[in-house]
């Protein structure tokens, strides 16, 4: 129980219903609302699986169902992503050694269902939620699909207040924005315009009649029983977010090396401390904000190391950390992480002007958690499948689908919004979502008076948000995207 957060200045972790479950025959308990992995973590179990060739211990890295390092056997069903699977009473969780055993279980899949909607929205984070609301507001029918148990995407762990102007919810905490959007969503659920499918994943694209209709397969998980949905839609909006970047250093796969998002999920969603002493890698906004959130959760942050010669994030955040006595070391990096079965310490090293380690500058530090905040890569696997034209745009964080200023890709009826379209902020993701939702609905004939001025207003908000010095990177990225699109489609 040592790893449960008791006191928190912002979040009130109320005691919820106690749930007991088995981990390899040991009876443990967690709380309602836990994921399997968060309950295991709170019980001190970080090793979830063993690696395929070298028998290395593995725990989850991303904590949001993307890295697949958390696969375990649950009630005999192998390959369950335990970081996003809900904890239920009496379940049996077992480690699966390397490849899963031949499953000794009857898979109770229900009959296939069909859903016909105007617009499919993949991802219920800030972009997907806003896209759904805007499209439904125009009168289109929407199916919103998300892998998690609750809507909000990464907003549900953003305990800090947002920057920007009032219009874009500045001064409001991300967790509150998620609640506001969820309330708006409920109104549309009641009038039947939006159908929400949580704990569900869009797993594949199957060419319908591309001109008029798109066909997707979606799997809905219900207490380990799945339903396969054939979804036919006239337009689809991909708001799938992003994946945390991994760094290369020996020991980078040890349990206890987490992405910053995973650390936030553990402490701000589940109320579980990721560890006792953390080294943060990366002094961009994510690294700085998460470091401060770690302190708020009562966890020691030993130091922040940043490979660049200067701090990347807002100086307000950096100053806050320094006031709390956390040193931020620029031109420093992780050389190696060591430990027997889990993180026990790290060696950090100074870098010279050519990014090379300075000999003799190594320092060994004891710690149990390494948090990587070294950027994100847009989640775009689906856009490849659909056949959208992709380009590598470094300022956008990697390969992205080319899209116009209505967020429309090169495939008719396929839109993109938020981090999937280029790494940026939650505030811009929300507006991109609105633009995508509005544009998709209009293209299907759901028009209203004042549509074009509303769209212009959204675009104006985007420009304002990107106007500052920290908006430079996305501004360049988005400019490159539209330039490339123009070149290809003159």
């Amino acid at each position: 129980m040592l790893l449960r957060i008791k006191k928190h200045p912002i979040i009130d972790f109320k005691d919820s219903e106690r749930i007991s479950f088995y981990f390899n025959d040991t009876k443990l308990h967690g709380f309602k609302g836990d994921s399997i992995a968060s309950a295991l973590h709170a019980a001190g179990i970080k090793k979830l699986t063993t690696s395929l060739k070298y028998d290395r211990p593995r725990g989850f890295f991303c904590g949001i169902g993307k890295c697949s390092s958390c696969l375990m056997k649950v009630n005999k069903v192998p390959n369950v992503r335990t970081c996003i699977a809900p904890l239920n009473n009496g379940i049996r969780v077992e480690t699966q050694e390397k490849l899963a055993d031949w499953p000794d279980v009857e898979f109770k899949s229900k009959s296939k269902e069909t859903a016909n909607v105007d617009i499919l929205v993949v991802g219920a984070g800030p972009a997907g939620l806003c896209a759904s609301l805007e499209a439904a507001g125009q009168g289109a029918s929407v199916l919103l699909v998300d892998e998690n148990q609750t809507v909000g995407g990464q907003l549900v762990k953003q305990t800090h207040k947002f920057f920007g102007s009032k219009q874009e919810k500045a001064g409001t905490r991300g967790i509150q924005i998620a609640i506001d959007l969820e309330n708006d969503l409920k109104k549309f659920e009641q009038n039947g315009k939006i159908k929400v499918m949580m704990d569900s994943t869009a797993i594949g694209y199957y060419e319908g009649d591309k001109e008029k209709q798109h066909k997707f397969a979606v799997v809905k998980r219900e207490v380990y029983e799945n339903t396969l949905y054939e979804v036919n839609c006239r337009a689809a909006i991909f708001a799938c977010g992003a994946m945390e970047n991994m760094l290369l250093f020996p020991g980078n796969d040890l349990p206890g090396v987490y992405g910053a998002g995973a650390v936030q999920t553990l402490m701000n969603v589940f109320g579980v401390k990721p560890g006792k002493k953390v080294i943060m890698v990366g002094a961009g906004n994510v690294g700085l904000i998460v470091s401060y959130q770690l302190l708020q959760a009562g966890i020691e942050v030993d130091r922040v190391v940043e490979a660049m010669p200067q701090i990347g994030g807002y100086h307000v955040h950096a100053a806050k950390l320094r006031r709390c006595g956390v040193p931020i070391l620029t031109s420093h990096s992780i050389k190696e992480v060591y430990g027997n079965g889990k993180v026990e310490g790290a060696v950090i090293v100074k870098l010279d002007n050519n990014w090379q380690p300075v000999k003799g500058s190594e320092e060994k530090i004891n710690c149990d958690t390494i948090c990587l905040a070294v950027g994100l890569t847009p989640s775009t696997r689906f856009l490849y499948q659909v056949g959208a034209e992709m380009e590598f745009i470094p300022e956008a964080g990697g390969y992205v689908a080319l899209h116009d200023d209505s967020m429309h890709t090169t495939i008719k009826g396929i839109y993109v919004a938020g981090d999937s379209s280029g790494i940026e902020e939650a505030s811009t993701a929300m507006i991109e979502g609105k633009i995508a939702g509005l544009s998709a609905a209009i293209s299907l004939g759901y028009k209203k008076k004042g549509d074009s001025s509303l769209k212009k207003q959204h675009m104006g908000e985007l420009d304002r948000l990107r106007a500052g010095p920290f908006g430079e990177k996305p501004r360049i990225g988005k400019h490159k995207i539209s330039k490339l699109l123009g070149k290809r489609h003159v």
Partner: protein
Amino acid sequence: MKKSAIVCRCEDITEEEVLKAIEEGYTDLEELRKKLRIGMGPCQGRVCVQIVIKILEKKTGKKVSKISIPTSRPPIIPVPLGTLASDKDEK
């Protein structure tokens, strides 16, 4: 095992293995995938592809935009076969 960073967590591929394969002449993502199974595990390349792109760029001098990404196919997450094979609702 020598101290080496892990590139692909699913298939347990180290940085050393990737570098060796590049030296042997496997110089794009598709070839490396076929040689080492990089990106073919349950995460479908979500962790490793961006790392391998960086290694390839550094080792071969190729422009990232010239390194093509492996094909993405359904299903994008592990799904029990029973689910994929579930039949039409007979009501």
